[in-house]
């Protein structure tokens, strides 16, 4: 005696398999977080700074992650309370440190670039506010593709 198909064990197994496959497909879609395919910035920091001391430069360090499939080119940086920010690279040349301003920096697709002491850094000129350990400084980075990213640099001493 065979009843309707939807009452059969075969139908129940088929339903279970379909549910599992559907569940897997949905969870697969959810792991495609848009942030995983984007340009992002983290680990931004700067050193304590005394705007009244007559010393008019400091640096911001950060890491840019390019999780897109296209190269990204950093072309500008901006801090509200400063005169200028330049993208720089310090290069060791036989024990001599040569700091070179560079108009842009390329971050290859699916790669990260760390701005760190003795390497790439943002030279901040004429910052008009003092910074103590723990203070935060907002910086906006501009990219050649028209995107801009705002991040916050934490004031701290070199963490070595």
């Amino acid at each position: 005696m065979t009843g309707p198909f939807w009452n059969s064990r075969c139908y129940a197994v088929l339903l279970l398999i379909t549910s599992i496959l559907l569940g897997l497909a949905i969870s697969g879609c959810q792991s495609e977080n848009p942030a995983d395919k984007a340009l992002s910035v983290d680990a931004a920091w700067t050193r304590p700074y005394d705007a009244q001391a007559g010393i008019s430069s400091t640096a911001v360090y950060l890491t840019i992650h390019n999780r897109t499939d296209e190269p990204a080119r950093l072309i500008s940086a901006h801090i509200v309370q400063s005169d200028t920010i330049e993208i720089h690279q310090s290069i060791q040349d036989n024990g001599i440190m040569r700091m070179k301003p560079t108009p842009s920096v390329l971050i290859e697709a699916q790669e990260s670039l760390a701005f760190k002491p003795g390497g790439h850094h943002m030279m901040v000129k004429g910052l008009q506010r003092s910074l103590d350990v723990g203070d935060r400084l907002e910086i906006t980075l501009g990219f050649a593709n028209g995107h801009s990213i705002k991040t916050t640099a934490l004031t701290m001493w070199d963490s070595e």
Partner: protein
Amino acid sequence: MKKAPTVVAHLLKQACIFGIILLSLNGCGPNALSELNGTLLDPAMDIADYGFNSADGDFNVSDFQGKHLVLAFGYTYCPDACPTTMARLNQTIKLIEEDADQVQVLLITVDPLRDSLSKLKTYTNTFHTDFIGAAVAPQDSAALFKTLGIYHERARTSATDSVSEEGLAEDNATDDYLVDHTTSTIVLDPDGNWRMVWNFELKPEEMAADLKKLIRAQ
């Protein structure tokens, strides 16, 4: 009759063990100037008793007789390499703890045109209140930089890839310029002789370990 040689043998054995321990202590202990992170000048190189100007008065290398003098080179407008070196030296001094009073850190400007003595003092105090910021006395400047192999030259700052003579002239006319310079740090021994060179990449832990060995070896 059999006991005497046994006692002698035992004593000899103990003496040997003691001797081996002594030798190993001598070879591996803190007195040994081995496995240093910086480059040791052995023997230390005799240098002149150079003079300096600072906001707190003029002084010579010999005024710090009895201390290791750590000479860093930089300038206050430098945003990257110089504060990195000074921050690392601050950590180094913290790491050597009770030996810190046997070391004096000195920042020597490679940009005396812009770095006033008061600015140098403010700058070094940012990192450590015991650090001294100074300019080499004008009559000693060329000799000190040449002897210690410290190169320094004004560079340009504009963010362009090519460096034109016109651009350089423009930068030189303003106060907005960078200085290319040697980033090595030099250590003088308590007699004012050149004892060691640290390269820029060394970590505070590595410099502190070297300083402790140099101090113990005195």
